[in-house]
């Protein structure tokens, strides 16, 4: 039986096409992926990410525990700030990639991937049990009780204040949501309840994400849609979420990341704070950073008129004596660029921008070019 979010009925009413994603029944699109993708790039889109997991870590030992368990440096976060980070195993392989918010001095909120909730919670619990000061903090899996909706796109800032009027009551002190700077989070009151609003997202556009009690999510979704529609806001599905994040080269767990792949190989070294002291996976990651890696994530563009690349298509070297280099991990037709784009792992000697490579599509090889990340950058 597939799981459903509190917005399932809303998706049905909006004519969303429902698919299975990581054990959940989720809308892949309401109109078309291209239409919803371009709405986010030009105006705004609202997504349902209530399937994602939320874990609260609370107590005066929470920071020390999380800084040992996650790769980025939590000590850099003031209350009301968040950061992208990764959770690695002893081999440096990625258990999950996530956002961690410092809600207040000793309260942390982890937003984790839907498909990884069980693994993440089990790992966190096992690490907590072996942590020296295990009684100095507590872990709470709030995934079922919590929903979340991102509003992404340049027009979001024109109407989000109307959806959550008033000053914050926790996190970053603000007079209105648009006072938030990138990666900040604030507690707001909505229908007499506490919700969290952050300036974050997964689309490469300006945007806000709202984390709220599950039973309040439909109210919030309906309100934002009503207020935002005159500004061009559209509901957007997981299809557009995937093409948007691919254009800006954000990783998706199970594609760019898995337990056999390290953040260094994935090009995420910026989020690995080797200088913060000991943490799980550090020895392997430090060695890779110093001595190099055997595979590297590259972005590539197909030549004109080619079929789009897809996950698992083989990557070959170009020219005589073709060598199989690796596999595509993400690929699609870019709605912004109208060309096939992809991400894949290759040996480092093939990872330089402008290296010609070939993608095997239905037993034929098509020309492609390694390009700098990302494919798309929002206009200034």
């Amino acid at each position, binding site marked *: 039986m597939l799981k459903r979010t509190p917005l399932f009925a809303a998706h049905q009413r909006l004519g969303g096409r429902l698919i299975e994603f990581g054990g959940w029944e989720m809308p892949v699109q309401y109109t078309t992926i291209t239409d919803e993708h371009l709405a986010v790039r030009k105006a705004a889109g609202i997504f349902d990410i209530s399937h994602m997991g939320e874990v609260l870590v609370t107590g005066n030992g929470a920071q020390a525990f999380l800084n040992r368990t996650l790769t980025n440096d939590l000590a850099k976060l003031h209350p009301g700030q968040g950061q992208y980070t990764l959770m690695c195993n002893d081999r440096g392989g990625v258990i999950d990639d996530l956002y961690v918010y410092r809600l207040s001095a000793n309260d942390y909120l982890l937003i984790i991937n839907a498909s990884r909730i069980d693994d993440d919670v089990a790992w966190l619990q096992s690490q907590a049990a072996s942590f020296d000061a295990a009684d100095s903090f507590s872990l709470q899996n709030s995934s079922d009780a919590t929903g979340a909706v991102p509003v992404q796109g340049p027009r979001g800032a024109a109407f989000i204040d109307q959806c959550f009027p008033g000053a914050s009551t926790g996190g970053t002190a603000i007079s209105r949501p648009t006072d938030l700077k990138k990666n900040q989070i604030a507690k707001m009151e909505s229908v007499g309840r506490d919700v969290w609003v952050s300036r974050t997202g997964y689309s490469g556009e300006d945007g806000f994400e709202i984390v709220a009690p599950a039973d309040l999510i439909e109210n919030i979704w309906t309100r934002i849609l009503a207020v935002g529609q005159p500004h061009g806001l559209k509901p957007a599905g997981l299809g557009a979420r995937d*093409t948007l994040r691919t254009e800006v080269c954000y990783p998706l767990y199970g594609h760019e990341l898995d337990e056999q792949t390290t953040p260094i190989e994935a090009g995420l070294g910026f989020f690995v704070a080797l200088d913060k002291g000991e943490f799980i996976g550090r020895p392997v990651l430090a060695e890779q950073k110093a001595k190099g890696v055997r595979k590297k994530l590259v972005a590539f563009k197909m030549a004109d008129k080619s*079929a*789009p690349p897809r996950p698992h298509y083989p990557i070959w070297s170009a020219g005589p004596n073709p060598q199989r280099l690796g596999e595509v991990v993400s690929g699609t037709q870019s709605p912004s660029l109208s060309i096939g784009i992809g991400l894949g792992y290759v040996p480092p000697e093939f990872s330089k921008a402008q290296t010609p490579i070939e993608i095997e599509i239905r037993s034929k090889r098509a020309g492609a070019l390694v390009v700098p990340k990302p494919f798309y950058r929002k206009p200034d």
Partner: protein
Amino acid sequence: MSNIPSDLKYAKSHEWVRVSGDIATIGITDHAQHELTDVVFVELPEKGKVVKAGDACAVVESVKTASDIYSPVSGEITEINKAVADNPALVNTEPYAGGWFYKIKLSNPKEVNALLAPAQYGAQISGGEA
């Protein structure tokens, strides 16, 4: 509602067939293009290729995924629609006209009789089966 022209025959797998003498023109239905949404790439068989009914002989790709197109009839490919390869959006905008895929010389014209009539195809897609 999907458009289902009355002068065509249909395959369960959502291709249409327009027969003229011993030549059949093949494309995909309005319902199919609607299900696929934005078609971004069409791969056609080579002219002269001999195919059997039910063979995967073309590919249509949307933003999300690649889908095989199965030949509803057997024969030799006599012509392919270069315009749809150059402009795959024709599959969405004119599925029964400019969005055709290929023409085939029927090697077994009786196969056409086994295809679905418009009403039968309409019943199939209104049954909710994609």
